[in-house]
């Protein structure tokens, strides 16, 4: 362990099927290239000037029907390849079920990782083999891209957006992590390692990490220290909505729309509070854009999410 493997292994559920498509494409395109190059070569030799090859009347089949034939053939082939490639992706289009969430924040020029238990890493990501993990990705400055070649996956990390990347490692080992979107001077130094451990080793690894507050505890502290609690908690019910039980449910807005309180809504409400005002409240909350960094936003969102979950548990939802 620890040594990075040079030959690119297949270390995720996607890797095998992506490589299958890749191999299929390599075979098909090699055949087409050989066909074109072969025909050009054969014609070039056979019909070089002065050769004895017959140049008589063109055979009857050599006309626009032939053209129609190869147009339809390539069209059909290309659509078939599309369908084959697309068949892999429909799983990704299904709304994700709740999986373990690991947060990653990209900034010039490092990756900051936070596990749900509060364990933190820089430029390293430890994962348990065989489990589905949702990486929740945010950027603190410019666009980065989280790329693990051994998993055949990458996802851009875009400031102002929360992007997600679902991964399920299938093989223990240590793999390269790259930033794949150009992000400035030290772009090529923004690299790290992904360490996939057996479940037992992962549990051991988690337990020996320094005790950090978990994300929602950290968020709770911010909630108080940044003054959120002054309006969103206690008796001041009139000025601002209470947040218990909000996460995951519908929120009626002042303009008549209803939105779902997901990560993006919570985040937007902190940064652009006048965008989607809850019905019955005045738009008096100030924006916290610039006052909170990405890590703090992630923590606050985690805290508000935990308020929603506690409520769900209390009413008999799944824990």
């Amino acid at each position: 362990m620890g040594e990075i493997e040079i030959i690119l292994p297949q270390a995720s559920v996607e890797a095998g099927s992506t490589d299958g498509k890749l191999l299929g494409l390599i075979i098909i395109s090699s055949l087409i290239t050989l066909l074109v190059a072969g025909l050009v070569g054969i014609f070039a030799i056979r019909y070089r000037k002065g050769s004895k090859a017959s140049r008589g009347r063109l055979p009857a089949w050599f006309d626009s029907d032939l053209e129609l034939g190869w147009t339809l053939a390539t069209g059909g082939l290309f659509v078939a390849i599309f369908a084959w490639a697309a068949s892999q992706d429909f799983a990704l289009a299904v709304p994700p079920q709740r999986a373990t969430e690991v947060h990653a924040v990209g900034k010039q020029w490092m990756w900051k990782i936070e596990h749900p238990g509060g364990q933190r890493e820089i430029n390293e990501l430890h994962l348990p083999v065989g489990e589905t993990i949702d990486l929740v990705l945010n950027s603190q400055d410019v666009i980065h891209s989280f790329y693990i070649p051994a998993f055949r996956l990458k996802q851009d990390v875009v400031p102002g957006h929360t992007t997600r990347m679902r991964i399920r490692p299938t093989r223990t080992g240590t793999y390269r992590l790259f930033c794949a979107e150009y992000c400035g001077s030290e772009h090529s130094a923004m690299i790290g390692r992904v360490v996939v451990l057996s479940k037992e080793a992962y549990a051991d690894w988690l337990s020996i990490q320094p005790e950090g507050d978990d994300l929602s505890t950290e968020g709770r502290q911010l909630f108080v220290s940044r003054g959120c609690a002054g309006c969103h908690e206690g008796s001041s019910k009139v000025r601002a909505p209470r947040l218990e039980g909000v996460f995951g449910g519908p929120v009626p807005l002042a303009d008549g729309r209803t939105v779902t309180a997901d990560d993006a809504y919570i985040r937007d409400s902190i940064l652009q509070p006048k965008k989607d005002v809850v019905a019955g409240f005045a738009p008096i909350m100030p924006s916290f854009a610039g006052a909170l960094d990405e890590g703090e936003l992630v923590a606050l969102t985690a805290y508000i999410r935990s308020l929603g979950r506690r409520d769900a548990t209390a009413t008999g939802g799944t824990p």
Partner: protein
Amino acid sequence: MSDIPFRDVDLEEDEAGPSTAEANYLEERFSLWSWLTTTDHKRIGILYLISTTFFFFIGGAAAVLIRLELFTPAGDLLTDDGYNKVFTLHGVVMVWFFLVPVIPSVLGNFLIPLMLGAKDLAFPRLNLASWYLNIIGGGFAVWAMLAGGVDTGWTFYTPYSTAFANSHVSLTAIGVFISGFSTIATGVNMIVTVHTMRPAGMGWFRMPLFVWAIYATSLIMLLSTPVLAIVLTLLITERLLGLGIFNPEYGGDPILFQHLFWFYSHPAVYIMILPGMGVVTEVITCFARRRVFGYKAMVYALLAIAVIGFFVWGHHMFTSGQSMYASLTFSFLSFIVAVPSAIKVFNWTATLYRGQITFEASMLYAMGFVGLFTMGGLTGLFLASVPVDLHMHDTYFVVAHFHYIMVGGMVSAFFAGLHFWWPKITGRMYPETAARIAAMLMFFGFNLTFFPQFILGNIGMPRRYHAYPDEFQVWHVLSSAGAVILAAAYLMPLFYLAWSLIWGRKAGRNPWRAHGLEWQTTSPPPKHNFLANPDVSGDVYAYHPRRNPRDE
């Protein structure tokens, strides 16, 4: 003026040509001022040839620095910022000041009126203004380079370019913005010329395919370049005035930039390849002595690429977090746009069938184009497949893919056309053996440079890396070695073409026994192109008799 037997399949080379009453366009006036104020489309073509050659060697020098740096895994030749500025310079200069103008504005300018039997383009003064806009834009880019460079990559992705880069982003963007007007003006000029300047008898489906290719290209130039102007204006506005358009800190959206940028830049890829397709068609038919196979299909394929090319931009954004449904739609359309490209490849191949093929340098370049364009196009299908792109996006696979199209395709086609029409442009023959050696060296050097990059991408090497892990080195060494050969091959034409201007054998009016109208006039042509009205009754691809009515 002896009449050329235009419909004769065994057209003979007209060696000497009678002395002309009117001086040719090169000898008409000699002063520098006469060149800088000329409205003669042929002279403006020469001005563009000089400026694009200048930019090609600036961009090429940057490429040499990139390949030298990547010879070793450590970033030891350039600093990281230095490297970032060099690859940005390479991209900006090569895309906007070489690839976009090179065929439409050099060969297109020179040939479109000649091929149509016209005296000039529709708007000669606008044509000269296009050149000035292009070099003023290029001047800004060079100024930015001399003032310390720009480090955003040619794609200018926000918010890096608007809020984080400490380099000359605005200056460069202004340069590209100005050169965009040059592109638009060239597009307008070509479209109006094709619509209004064709002589009686030159119907739409009698035009050479090179004219069709420039026409299709001009449509894209006219419709897509304004979007580039808009996105660059927004970028400069955000950067200089701090307005929130793309920067999320002020409520903007970085993804909006990508949509606008690729809505221009994907069609721009077709601006950079369709003219090459036109050149190759003229060259292959001439040296195979065959009528082009499927003329009308070739026309419709050009137009189909031009139209569908506007609807595939989202395939640059599969990893951006866009909806999977959007990605699949763009993926499907990207596969569809490959079909007309495949038609063109098969039709070029079929044109060789039962020909009388000779292998002049232009033909070697054209055959190289067919092979390299095929590989570039097919590897595009890899990137159009969503799952494969999630792995390959922003790796060296993409770099290899678009260099197969841009360099293996477009640059090969430009050299094919430059050699093919060199006798017409200059009145002199270039040395054939040297040219053949250069063509073969280029093909070999190109493949050695870029084929290893497919493998690099496959094993996960990201683009725009100044330093890289050791396991990638072997492929980078091969690539850098290829680049040395390629650089030498690119220098060769500079010398032997210059040599031919003075010592080259005088070319007759039609050294290749070709069938375009441009070959009916003297080499070099007189100021007003034709001394007598050209005979447009002939078939431009009458290289073999049409025996069968279905035989196009």
